[in-house]
């Protein structure tokens, strides 16, 4: 298979499957699920080829495929893969077939529409992760809202309309300001280089004026980008759409939302905000770190008092994503690597938690902790799997969560010791709310009649969870599998941030203030960086 359009094939294969599903006659209804699953599995298989052919020693984009699109405007179709996007792509292609299997009995209304929406969503998510033309990225980023809106709005719970609209509008407001910032950046590139281009690699070269205070182009652009990404992450205080969306979404929607869509935000910070606006990042760092710490502790505390298991997991996402962002903003090798790893970990463990919560909901039609209790007796397999995933989520050594959180805290301690110490309480709180919930749901007397007669997981459900548990354990014992493929890219990212930061405050002519705010800060980080 030719390498140059491999990535394009991976990206658009699900969409092709969706189009086939769309034109099939209604009489073929029985084969719809199988066909969609086959399309998503084929995508996963193809993405494994990417994994095997990926060159870990290169920090640049691989499998680059470009084609002219709107040449006069410097808009081209250009995709590529590096260490940052590789695992996110794999996570996406891996989780979509799993959610399709999990939805086998869950989704019974409008099956064809559901499958088409899911497959279309997969293409859009993959597209956003692999685009290296900002215009192309924006198209995928924005178009992604609709399938998720439909998934929540059609197949969701009782307050689905409210939740879906809230999700859409929150994200849209952020994205539209991102569009303005993007065009501004693009005009800046034209001013400096005389050619039109949305190519990320060329926009990296643009000198974006920076100065003290926040009323300067770089800080404002950073804020516009950050707003779009922070809503998606979500960072406190922009997280309020998340619990609503998760509670109302069907299981498959929650899994995709938590495991992949939230990562879009963190990915955006890594891919765009840091390398494009290093000075503004450094300038606003105390605020950003502060928001991360608040998010970590606030999310954990709110999760603790939830009566609904799904809401608890939703708030735990706010806390976990706070960790991811803390790692990224630590701006050193450990922090970035841990943040990236934790993105994958959170995708696996929270995805699995949502799947498990969905399974109990299918049986009991409630997610209230008070309605459950003593489930370990009637559901031993379920309880065991739930416990494994819980331990992964709270970061037990030997499972994946530990490595990520450890690296993040290690990185954060080097640059922001106070923030790291405060955040470490988040790890403890996570153990408290998760284990307390497990205790109330699974142990103690099984005194409700409805709970005693529950059936344990069938083979399909066990298969679904085990499929996720495998990488959970694998990444836990062999994190090098992951870090060896991301290190080169992250090193290149750091080098770019430093080089650009140094250039921009020298060039701005206001050496003193930016040096104190931006250059000095990055230089200090550079000194502390461990290779």
């Amino acid at each position, binding site marked *: 298979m030719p390498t140059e359009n491999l990535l394009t094939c991976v990206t658009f294969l699900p969409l092709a499957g969706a189009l086939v599903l769309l034109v099939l006659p209604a009489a073929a209804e029985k084969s719809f699920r199988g066909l969609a699953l086959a399309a998503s599995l084929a995508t996963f298989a193809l993405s494994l080829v990417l994994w095997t052919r990926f060159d870990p020693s290169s920090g640049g984009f691989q499998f680059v495929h470009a084609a002219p699109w709107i040449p006069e405007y410097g808009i081209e179709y250009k995709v590529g893969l590096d260490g940052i996007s590789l695992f996110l792509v794999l996570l996406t292609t891996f989780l979509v077939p799993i959610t399709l299997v999990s939805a086998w009995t869950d989704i019974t209304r409008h099956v064809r529409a559901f499958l088409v929406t899911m497959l279309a969503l997969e293409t859009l998510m993959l597209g956003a992760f692999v685009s290296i033309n900002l215009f192309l990225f924006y198209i995928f980023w924005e178009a992604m809202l609709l399938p998720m809106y439909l998934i929540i709005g059609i197949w969701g719970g009782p307050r689905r309309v409210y939740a879906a609209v809230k999700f859409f509008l929150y994200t849209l407001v952020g994205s539209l300001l991102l569009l303005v910032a993007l065009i*501004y950046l693009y005009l800046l590139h034209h001013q400096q280089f005389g050619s039109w281009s949305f190519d990320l690699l060329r926009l990296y070269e643009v000198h974006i004026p920076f100065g003290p205070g926040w009323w300067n182009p770089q800080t404002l652009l950073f804020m516009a980008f950050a707003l779009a990404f922070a809503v998606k992450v979500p960072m406190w205080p922009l997280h309020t759409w998340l619990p609503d969306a998760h509670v109302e979404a069907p299981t498959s929607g929650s899994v995709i939302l938590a495991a992949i869509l939230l990562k879009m935000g963190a990915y955006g910070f890594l891919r765009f905000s840091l390398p494009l606006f290093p000075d503004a990042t450094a300038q606003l760092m105390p605020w950003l770190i502060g928001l991360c710490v608040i998010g970590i502790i606030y999310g954990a505390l709110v999760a603790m008092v939830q009566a609904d298991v799904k809401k608890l997991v939703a708030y735990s996402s706010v806390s976990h994503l706070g960790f991811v962002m803390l790692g990224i903003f630590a701006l050193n090798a450990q922090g970035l690597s841990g943040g990236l790893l934790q993105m994958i970990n959170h995708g696996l463990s929270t995805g699995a938690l949502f799947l498990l919560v969905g399974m109990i909901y299918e049986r009991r039609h409630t997610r209230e902790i008070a309605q459950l209790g003593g489930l370990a007796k009637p559901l031993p397999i379920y309880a065991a799997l739930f416990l494994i995933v819980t331990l992964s989520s709270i970061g037990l050594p030997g499972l994946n969560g530990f490595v990520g959180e450890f690296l993040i805290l290690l990185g954060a301690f080097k640059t922001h010791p106070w923030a790291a110490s405060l955040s470490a309480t988040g790890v403890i709180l996570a153990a408290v709310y998760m284990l307390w919930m497990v205790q109330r749901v699974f142990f103690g007397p099984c005194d409700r009649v409805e709970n005693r007669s529950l059936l344990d997981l069938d083979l399909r459900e066990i298969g679904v969870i085990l499929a996720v548990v495998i990488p959970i354990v694998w990444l836990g014992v062999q994190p090098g599998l992951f870090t060896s493929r991301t290190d080169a890219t992250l090193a290149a990212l750091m080098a770019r941030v430093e080089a650009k930061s140094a250039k921009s405050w020298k060039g701005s002519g206001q050496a003193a203030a930016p040096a104190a705010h931006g250059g000095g800060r990055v230089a200090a980080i550079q000194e502390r960086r461990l290779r």
Partner: protein
Amino acid sequence: MTGFSMAAIDLRALEPILIVSGGALLVLMLDLVIPRRGRAALAAVTVGTMVLAAVSSVALWGETPLRFMRQAHPMLHLDAYAIFFNLILLTGAVLTVLASVNYLEEVGAHHGEYYVLILCAVAGMMTMAQATDLVMIFLGLEMMSIPVYVLAGFNRRLVKSNEAALKYFLLGAFASGIFLYGIAMIYGTTGATDLASIRAAWKPTPLALAGVGLLLVGFGFKISSVPFHMWTPDAYEGAPTPITGFMAVGVKAAAFAAFLRVFLVAFDLSAEKVNALLWVFALATMTVGNVAAIAQHNIKRMLAYSSIAHAGYVLVGMVAGTAAGEAAVLYYLLAYAFMNLGAFAVVILLVRDGEERQEIDDLAALGYTRPALGLAMTLFMLSLGGIPPTAGFTGKFYIFRAALEAGDTWLVILAVLNSAVSMYYYLRVIGVMYRNEPTRDLRATGPSTACGLALLVSAAATIILGIFPAGALDLAVRSVRALIS
């Protein structure tokens, strides 16, 4: 009339207008001989005429600019700009006619005059797009407006349709009067009515400025810019649905064609005062349109307010005042023609037993009862809201890009926030289609091939312009270049 000879008249400059006018006469006569049940044939003749006019426009592209009279200051000027607008106007009119056939049968108002009036209005619109003289623009404006007043009241058994026609007519007559008064003032100060001479003799005297202000009112009325938009929701709601679409797309595009040409050729669009005024108009138009649309339960009223908001976005492109901005305006009007007429075509297909289904709730569960229709409506709503990859997104992108380049950063930020607001009511339509159980019977009526064709063309164009916008944009850029040079 010394010095005037037939040789000085180049009829080719009039070719598209003559074809459409001839078609109007032909349909008028055919109506007498064709039996009642064969009225669909009249629609076919109408569409054929307009396709012919479009072909002739395209064929003349290479020979432009053509002047009707070979003088320094011609009345009509068939240049690339006019041809681009001819294509928008003819496309809009063809889609309107296609969408009308079944509708007229359903509501029992299938008369040959309907097509005659549409052809007359199109001839007027094309005159507006080609005119380079204020008097000629006024003539085109009236040729367009009077048939549209009648068309708005075409469903004459309905009180609402009569109300729409009367309201539109009364206010429109005032607006025409104001427009004419503006022309008189400008003639009074510059001694000319043709655009190039006005520019040459321009002096910013109070009288001339008042004249420009009055012209702005006239144009503002036709494009339904705030604060001259009051008639729009009522007229749009009461008019027969295909005519509502025609008004939103055709009338508006023609008015913008003349508006843009007048302010580019005769007055300085980028002059500070005009620019500041347009800035305010753009912002007010977007905001009022979008905010008012949120509160609507009637889909035609919602689309009316949405069309006000879209006029606001187009004004943002005019505020930019650069060649890129004007090209974006042209592109946007083209994109808008498809996505908006598509949305109206879906509403038209909902007509049952002579009664229009106008409530948004009437679309309930359309996505399941008629999946193709639901999918198409979803596409049009997304495009109107500016979500990629649709024509609406690329159009907004070009406009915002041009305005940012011109330095109107705040206006663009307010415009994108407006887009977010607008998405709320477009989403509601999608939501209703895919969530609720049907509130009323939505059984399919007889085959409506023509309307289906209109829908298919609109949907295809909305996607194609969204994914491959380069060709159409290139045409727009070249059209504008012809105008400025």
